[in-house]
């Protein structure tokens, strides 16, 4: 092997890499937060809405889950201007991620709602609890326990998937990488380092989520 590695030329750009990583985290967190609002509303509509609304929600879920994210982002960024809605790359990236994670989120939240045992709510009522108390003390924790693993892995998937937003030049880590390698011509080194940064982000998130689960969501041990 005669290749000479030049990682110094990549680390010289560390402020841009750090900013890219920060953008990726902000973009993913915002998309997840807004996406969860979409998911909760969608799940409520799907479990207790009128039939026509359920059909619309089902169509939305199926369309999003059976088409590539790249096409979704192209339709939003390049397609919407033809009906008069022009979004900046960042706004289009956020919109596409929200629309995408919303569809996956609905099914997760719905499973959480369906995991709650009706008998538990009746038991709460017969103990004289008010609806809010029932929600706070009976429903909330088991529901979160049920959906927590799926939601956290969805968040990490979303963070990794946000790299596709570089295709429309939204400001995030992969776009920063593309920018750097177009200036120092060290494609391999740049992408290896950036892959490492993504991996570090995943590992930190995995550990943080596992820690939170240990601290707050541990199920009581059965005897």
């Amino acid at each position, binding site marked *: 092997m005669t*290749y000479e590695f030049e990682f110094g030329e990549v680390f010289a750009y560390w402020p841009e890499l750090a900013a890219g990583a920060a953008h990726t985290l902000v973009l993913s967190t915002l998309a997840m937060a807004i996406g969860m609002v979409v998911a909760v509303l969608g799940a409520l509509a799907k479990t207790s809405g009128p039939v026509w609304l359920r059909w619309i929600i089902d169509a939305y879920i199926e*369309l999003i889950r*059976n088409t*590539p994210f*790249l096409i979704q982002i192209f339709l939003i960024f390049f397609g919407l201007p033809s009906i008069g809605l022009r979004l900046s790359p960042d706004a289009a990236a956020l919109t596409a991620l929200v629309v995408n994670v919303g569809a996956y989120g609905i099914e997760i939240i719905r499973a959480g709602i369906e995991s709650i045992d009706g008998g538990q709510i009746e038991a709460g009522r017969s103990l004289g609890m008010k609806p809010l108390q029932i929600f706070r003390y009976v429903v909330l924790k088991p529901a979160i326990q049920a959906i927590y693993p799926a939601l956290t892995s969805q968040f990490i998937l979303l963070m*990794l998937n946000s790299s596709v937003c*570089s295709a429309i030049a939204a400001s995030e880590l992969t776009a920063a990488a593309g920018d750097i390698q177009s200036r120092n011509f060290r494609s391999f080194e740049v992408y290896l380092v950036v892959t490492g940064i993504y*991996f570090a982000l995943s590992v930190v998130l995995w550990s943080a989520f596992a820690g939170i689960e240990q601290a707050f969501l541990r199920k009581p041990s059965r005897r």
Partner: protein
Amino acid sequence: MRTLSEGDILFILLAVRWTLLLSLIAFLGGAVGGLAVALARTGEIRALRLLARGYITVFQGTPLLMQLFLAFFVPSIFGINVDPWTAAALGLSLHASAFLGEIWRGSIETVPHGQTEAATALGLRYWPRMALVVVPQAVRIAIPPTIGFLVQLIKATSLASIIGFVELTRAAQIINNATFRPFTLFGLVALVYFVICWPLSAYSRRIERKLTLASR
């Protein structure tokens, strides 16, 4: 800029064959690699178990787009120049190996341990035990999530367009650059992906429902 012609639409529709071929190659490559990963992950050799686990963690913890970029650039540091087609096929196969490996590990582990013990008691060694006793039982459980992953993989081939391989998505981009009809073109492409993926998703859900009913 020119107007969109029938030839353009045909060019895009014919590019589906590259999407399908790439999906097929990545799936076959992923099946071979995934089987190796799943067996290593559930096997008796500690070093192999750790290696397989590390492989899965790295591929599940990094973006597919980065994996494709590296599949494109890594061979060149060894002095081998790969074209986008080879890079995409290689990158997607390695990616699929990790995900199928993890899915199949889960399926193998659902087979009760008593089955392995019984087979061992009958004098079967590792390979006949896996091939005749464990894997046939694991396959039933593995089918729905495997088809589910196939859908993910077909969608994932669209990222090959970013490293310059002309498949369905790239074909639409090329025509769009000349005619500028993004809504029509990407809408059409979305529809083509949907027509391929939706029946698979529906089929996977149907067998999954059947399996849950059968195991009650």
